[in-house]
């Protein structure tokens, strides 16, 4: 019975964690899956978003979720600038492979060092009424507890990811983004500027770092180097879901969240980072297109 109780609780925590994972990886799914820009710095930008949230919450007392929404336009603008530079220096001259990766790795490093210089290496938290309490109950003799901070992050993540998915599926712009993924040349023949589409899409991808950062600081205490721990997670999710498939990313995020939560419960939390890597390597070795992938992986 204790095993069952542990299992149910781990499962609930895993699903909630999966929602959070979906929020931090959906931006990368757009950048990497749809635009072929391997934004290695994505998790670090999420951490940057978390620190912006921390400042707004700590100095002005703004609710973290609201703060995340406030900073999102700034991240959109940042994404616009980064993509413009990336296009100018790499994509236009088709020197993407080696130097593009090095460029994003350099950005990762610069962002992290700047965060360390500004905020130090202490762990930071935010204050909000829903942080620190949990909702508990008994169903069929099994006690379970749902922390409100995970629940609120799950709800916001759900709105963000499902909303973005609907936007990319239904809207004209979403179809243009998918088209740019399939054939840039054809899109420009249709009278659409593919670079503009990519610039906006990359901006949207990076814009999610604002809200995802707010969710991150709600879910866990953060410090500048924490972004590294999530590199394995976000890439495992995007690759497992399949490049170019937003709904695949959501499913993969759930799978990884549940897997990590079960491993953390039954083997100890220090083993959790190994889960994402095993999944990443397994997928690359046996099914490189991922669960719902359509892309070319060779």
């Amino acid at each position, binding site marked *: 019975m204790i095993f069952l109780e542990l299992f149910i609780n781990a499962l609930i925590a895993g699903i909630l964690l999966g929602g959070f994972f979906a929020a931090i990886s959906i931006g990368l799914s757009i950048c990497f899956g749809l635009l072929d820009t391997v934004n290695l710095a994505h998790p670090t930008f999420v951490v940057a978003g978390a620190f912006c949230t921390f400042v707004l919450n700590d100095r002005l007392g703004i609710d973290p979720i609201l703060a995340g929404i406030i900073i999102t336009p700034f991240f959109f603008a940042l994404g616009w600038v980064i993509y413009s*530079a990336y296009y100018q220096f790499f994509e236009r001259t088709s*020197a993407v492979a080696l130097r593009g*990766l090095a460029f994003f790795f350099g950005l990762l490093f610069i962002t992290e060092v700047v965060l360390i210089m500004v905020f130090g290496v202490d762990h930071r938290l935010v204050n909000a009424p829903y942080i620190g309490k949990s909702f508990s109950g008994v169903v069929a003799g099994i006690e379970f507890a749902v922390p409100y901070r995970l629940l609120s992050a799950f709800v916001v993540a759900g709105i963000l990811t499902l909303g973005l998915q609907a936007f990319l599926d239904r809207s004209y712009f979403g179809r243009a983004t998918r088209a740019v993924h399939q054939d840039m040349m054809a899109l420009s023949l249709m009278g659409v500027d593919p670079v503009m589409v990519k610039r906006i899409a990359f901006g949207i991808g990076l814009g999610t770092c604002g809200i995802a950062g707010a969710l991150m600081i709600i879910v866990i205490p953060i410090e500048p180097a924490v972004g590294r721990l999530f590199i394995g997670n976000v890439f495992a999710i995007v690759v497992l879901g399949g490049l170019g498939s937003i709904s695949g990313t959501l499913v993969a995020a759930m799978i990884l969240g549940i897997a990590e939560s079960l491993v953390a419960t039954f083997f100890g939390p220090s083993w959790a980072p190994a889960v994402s890597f095993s999944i990443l390597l397994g997928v690359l070795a046996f099914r490189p297109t991922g669960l719902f992938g359509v892309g070319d992986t060779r």
Partner: protein
Amino acid sequence: MVMRYKFEIGCVLFVALAFTITQVDINNFFFFAAFAVLQYVMIATAWNILGGYAGYINFGTAGFLGVGSYTAIGLIQWSDVSIVGQIIAAAFVSGLLGLAIGYFTLRLKGVFFAIATLALAIVLETVVNNWDFVGGAAGISILPPRNPELLGVLIVDRKGGGIFDNNKELLFFLIAFMAIFSVWVARVIEKGKLGRGLNAIKDNEEAAECMGVPTLRLKLIATTISGSLMGAAGGIFPSYLTFIDPPTAFNLEFAINSLAMPMIGGTFTWIGPVVGALLLGTVQQVAIVTISSELNLLIIGVMLVLFVTIAPHGIVGWFMKKK
């Protein structure tokens, strides 16, 4: 005859010079700082065998180095294996790791290999954190043996009977030898069939495959050589630091440096990483003493981004163009 083996003679002279320096009585800090710079020459050269010649980026330098370090620590914990034995074992284990990672991911696009190596360093750190035999998360102290012998010859003796007066001198000589050996290996690869094959892969993998270049095999060979050289550089690391914990062994600083040094020096020839490592390594040794280490890392990150965007052929590229 002499002209033909100019480079090899230079290597031998350099090793002899390194040995002579150890026999002269100078400040021990020189050996400490020079070790770090030479270690970076080795790491950058090893990285460039795969990254520069074949165009496959390895972000997992810290992982390979850490595996080398922890192989050495495992051997020290298990029994008294000499420092040379530790280095050879570390090179072997890291080479196997490179082969395994390469086997899983090198058949795909280059980005997947890059991502896998980046995640690798983090996961290996998790494994070591959970492994108490090699110190776990708390780290471990290493006591270098007092009077080590190799093949019956006394190597280090403080009283002056051995070849070297202290352990730092021995380590300096070893790393100088290994650094030169790595550069020699890189040059042999570059001039040989393997290097030409890797260059073909870098230019256009599909075309290379169609022309009959065994792409996967060449990439696996390059990854294994590159990994084992990094492992050897890691194998000597615990003896140099005498204390090691997972955050030190798996420091992301190694990844950025091993990437930035060849990129800044120039990735297309063996001398590029050497120039980059000597330059950046020396600047860092000075910067760590004079300004903060965070600022030092920031400078490297900014320099990497600048060189990658504006001067993609590195410092060596400037001189090549003038000809």
